[in-house]
């Protein structure tokens, strides 16, 4: 339980964070950024933005950005520790609550709490967008790409993967 042990720091950080991650993984991104970049200096701003991009581009739940953060801190054991710490406690909590609430809508509290969390998780996700934009959109071309993707994805049902690939191509061509 040495406080300097990086594995223990990962487990306590992400274990605690997951319990406050209302609204899923995207809502937890600002807190991950604050802790990984500003508090512990595990990564630079740029590395964090890269990790987010890799997590978006890869299959699986988007929460797996924590695998990349964990690897940056402590290699493969760090990657596994961060992933389990972020995913297991709340999954077990969900298991216990679902057993307790096995009968439907006995009370209106679940619906009420859920309605109350909606605006908060949208606020958290917009904060994620702002923080990531601050590190990626440093040029006018980059800002334009982000804005264009935002508009296209808002009005059409195109597979997001295509938009990510176009972004990668424009980057490869040196345009953004």
């Amino acid at each position: 339980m040495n406080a300097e042990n990086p594995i223990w720091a990962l487990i306590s950080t992400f274990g605690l964070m997951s319990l406050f991650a209302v609204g899923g993984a995207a809502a937890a991104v600002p807190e991950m950024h604050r802790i990984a970049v500003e508090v512990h200096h595990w990564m630079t701003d740029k590395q964090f933005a890269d990790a987010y991009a890799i997590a978006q581009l890869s299959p699986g739940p988007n929460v797996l950005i924590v695998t990349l953060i964990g690897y940056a801190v402590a290699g493969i054991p760090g990657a596994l520790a961060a992933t389990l710490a972020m995913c297991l406690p709340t999954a077990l909590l969900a298991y216990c609550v679902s057993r307790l609430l096995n009968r439907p809508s006995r009370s209106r509290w679940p619906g009420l709490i859920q309605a109350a969390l909606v605006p908060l998780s949208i606020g958290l996700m917009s904060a994620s967008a702002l923080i990531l934009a601050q590190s990626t959109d440093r040029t006018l071309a980059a800002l334009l790409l982000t804005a264009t993707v935002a508009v296209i994805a808002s009005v059409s049902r195109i597979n997001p993967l295509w938009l990510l690939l176009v972004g990668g191509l424009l980057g490869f061509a040196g345009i953004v």
Partner: protein
Amino acid sequence: MSLDSAPAAQEPGIPTVHASPPGLVALFLAFARMSLAGFGGVLVFARQAIVERHRWMTADQFNETFALCHFLPGPNIVNLSMVFGSRLRGIAGGVAAFTGLLLPPTLIMTVLAIVYARFGDVEVLRRVLAGISCAAVGLLIAVVFRMMTPLLKRLDAVALILMLGVFLAIGVLRLPLQAVLLVAIPLSVGAIFLMRRKVAA
């Protein structure tokens, strides 16, 4: 944990779920498959596999299970795998679904982390990742916009103020998540409770 105890059975509609629950290996494989198909989010694929392909749950049962996982903290789809697996096969089923969902993509992500650690400074890769990052932020903005639309349409002032408050506290002031939520959750629950009581009265 049989399906009879699951909610939504009260609905008069005939639930079209398979009689025998799937085995642990089947659960693991099904979740591994939907996870690997799920670029940019697994939920759509999870719904398709559970409700349409395997018919392990009705659409109502799926919605109810997802709503529960959505209002609890943590990654929703991960919570869903545990709750769903355990409803069909007890805790072992929960662990099988959880492992199926997380193990394959975690391995892929670890390999990518190794690649990034070695080649992350290569100029071409840097540029490609920069382009992808810009697009990824655009996608996130679109999701936020879609989620915000119902609040804007209803002109839900309380919700919009709460949303803006959280955005400023976390995004601009960079306050810690726990502190912000310990204030915002009671405020939000209280406001909605009062509003609903006023509507009911």
